[in-house]
């Protein structure tokens, strides 16, 4: 694996991963059928690119495509190129020229200088989705993990995680290390990857941290918030309140996403943002709860949310900070009660890479 795949945006990846971990909770947790839903895989991008170049005759019949040179011109590693070429050969667009690479079409070899190949491929590199493989699945794995946290302790099997998400074991391990960094999992004494059960204390401690961190972050981002985004969100919450409880749990999920995730997206203090994301895991509790039970108790939170946004709109950042802090403090009893109710549910059917720990 190349450095670019491992660390695609060196320096900022940690924060980005937490961003996506947070956003992951915006997806419904029933997801997870093993089919990649996000951006396509890098080999797929390369396959599509080469296929188009062949069909457009930019890569004429007889052109010789070698793994190493294609990788070099596209600025990617060899593994996805190998896979893309294999896929092309399965469609018959290229044929294997034993020991030499692949031949476009089935005719004679047509010599093409490295320069020619470079001119054809290099301008196309922007078309390749370079998101690292671990990033593609990180959000989904995070959500799969969050979704079992209220129910028990689980062990993650590295190889099965890779199989399930159709990535290599190396990538699976990369994802797991990122999850450790996001404090969603831990390694036990036997070096197993463990998803620990969410406890009342975890919830209390995280809310205490959020009360310290989020009002601070709010002050940082307040000035830069897009007024139309604020207006839109206020209208959305007003609509939810007006139709409550018929607005449904999904609408409240979306509102909380905007308020607690999108709100801080432009926070420049990456350390602060990282800490916030790490302490937001309990947002999964109301989300899971709302999938099964009455949303009656969410009305007072919606009222607080819209007040908070109105304060931000009018520039009363201090008051918005106070309101946010008191909302977080007051949300604790309900959050804990909902966590207790989740215990009544039968443990969820987990993804195959997680096994309940005894």
């Amino acid at each position, binding site marked *: 694996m190349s450095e670019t795949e491992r660390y695609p945006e060196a320096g900022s990846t940690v924060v980005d991963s937490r961003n996506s971990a947070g956003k992951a909770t915006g997806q419904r947790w029933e997801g997870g059928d093993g089919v990649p839903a996000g951006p396509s895989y890098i080999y797929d991008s390369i396959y599509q690119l080469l296929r188009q170049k062949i069909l457009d005759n930019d890569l004429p019949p007889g052109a010789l495509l070698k793994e190493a040179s294609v990788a070099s011109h596209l600025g990617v590693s060899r593994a996805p190129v190998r896979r893309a070429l294999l896929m092309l050969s399965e469609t018959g667009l290229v044929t294997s020229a034993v020991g030499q690479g692949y031949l476009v079409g089935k005719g004679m070899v047509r010599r093409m200088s490295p320069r020619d190949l470079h001119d054809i491929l290099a301008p196309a590199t922007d078309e390749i989705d370079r998101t690292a493989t671990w990033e593609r699945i990180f959000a989904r794995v995070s959500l799969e993990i969050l979704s079992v946290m209220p*129910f028990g302790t689980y062990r993650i099997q590295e190889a099965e995680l890779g199989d399930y998400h159709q990535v290599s074991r190396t990538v699976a391990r990369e994802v797991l290390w990122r999850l450790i960094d996001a404090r969603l999992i831990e390694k036990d004494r036997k070096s197993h990857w463990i998803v620990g059960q969410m406890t009342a204390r975890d919830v209390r401690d995280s809310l205490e941290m959020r009360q310290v961190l989020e009002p601070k972050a709010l002050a940082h981002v307040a000035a830069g918030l897009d007024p139309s985004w604020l207006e839109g969100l206020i209208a959305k919450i007003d609509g939810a309140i007006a139709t409550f409880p018929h607005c449904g749990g999904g609408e409240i999920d979306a509102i909380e996403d905007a308020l607690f995730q999108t709100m801080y997206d432009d926070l420049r203090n990456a350390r602060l943002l990282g800490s916030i994301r790490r302490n937001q895991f309990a947002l999964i509790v109301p989300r899971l709860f709302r999938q099964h039970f*009455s949303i009656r108790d969410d009305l007072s939170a919606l009222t607080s949310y819209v007040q908070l946004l109105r304060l931000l709109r009018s520039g009363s950042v201090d008051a918005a900070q106070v309101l946010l802090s008191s909302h977080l403090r007051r949300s604790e009893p309900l959050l804990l009660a909902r966590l207790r109710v989740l215990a009544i549910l039968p443990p969820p059917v987990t993804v195959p890479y997680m096994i309940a720990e005894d």
Partner: protein
Amino acid sequence: MPEPRLRIIGTSVTLTEELCARAKADLPFAIDFDVLDGLACLRRGVLSPESYDIYDQWFYSLDMLWTAGAIQAIDTARIRRWPQVRVAGKVPGLARERSSGNAPTELLFVQSDGTLGHAPNQPEAPQIGMLPTTYNVDSFAYRRELLSAVAPGEAESWGWLLDDRWHGRATISLDPAGSAVELALAARSAGLVDLRDPGDLTTEEIDALCDVLRSLKRRGHFARFWGSSEDSVSLMASSSVIGSLWSPAYYTLRGMGQDLIYAAPREGYRGWHSGLCLSARATAEVSELAYAYMNWWLEGTPGAVMARQGFYMAVTEPLSETLSDAEWLYWYGGEPASEDLRGASGAIVVKQGERREGGSYQDRIRRVAVWSTIMPEHNYLARRWRELIEL
């Protein structure tokens, strides 16, 4: 239109055969009783409010039923004897007691923000989440022959449940809401763990307690864990010599001639309180029946049925009509029985001259060390408990 029927779910603790039969005889509408085990009842209460009209179980399930939106507020204006209701002997909503676990009065009244709280939000006809009915204080029972192994002056203690003297012959309940607090009291008394509050265990304390229990279970200390009151009767009648036991089971065993002593442990009792909830899905029409049933519960008949298995009632006034003086003085007064007394099944369960352990109901209630509870770390406890059971 078919005649409306009232659908009730609960456990055999309160929905005894006699109680169900009396309700059907006394009330002018059809009633379907569904008697479930405790966890199944709680799960159905939380998950399927459309499947019942009245939920009859422990007070500590109230918090979960309410949070899940499975039940609706009960209007005390429609409860005839509401002014006489006492929760564990006290006027609800007044003095707040400092006790461990979910004291039943902590979450009784519906507040103006829709949550449940300790005090009524209006003095007249407050709304409540659960109508208090019957309650008791529990401990454990042991065979009289054990006294030969007890040192002179050694007070009865929860620690006995974990004592090596009775290795392989102890039994406890499968239900963690009762058992965990009992075993926490026991392990603390026996000096096996250091616990701050048995009714609010931290995750570390739960781990420590479960480690002790795993080790005891592996060594074969427990004969078996019992799943129902009937199960506890058969266990205590056969292989076990000491075990946590509910009062109906104790008096059933006494009626069978078993020479068992019910303990008044030096650490205090585990208290519990039962009540009735109204399903969120109950229509106005069905609610009429539900209120009639709730009112019936506070009249003297159910109270007498409960008293004969050792339980107390939230309203005691009408019991003068349904309990004999001898029964009242034994069950509630803690006085020596002036005659042989029959239990719920009709068998003689108390012999003349016997006295209830712990004294009068006020004395016994005062000695509640911890209430049966869904503690804050219940989720964690439930999982660790299941691991222990499956060991």
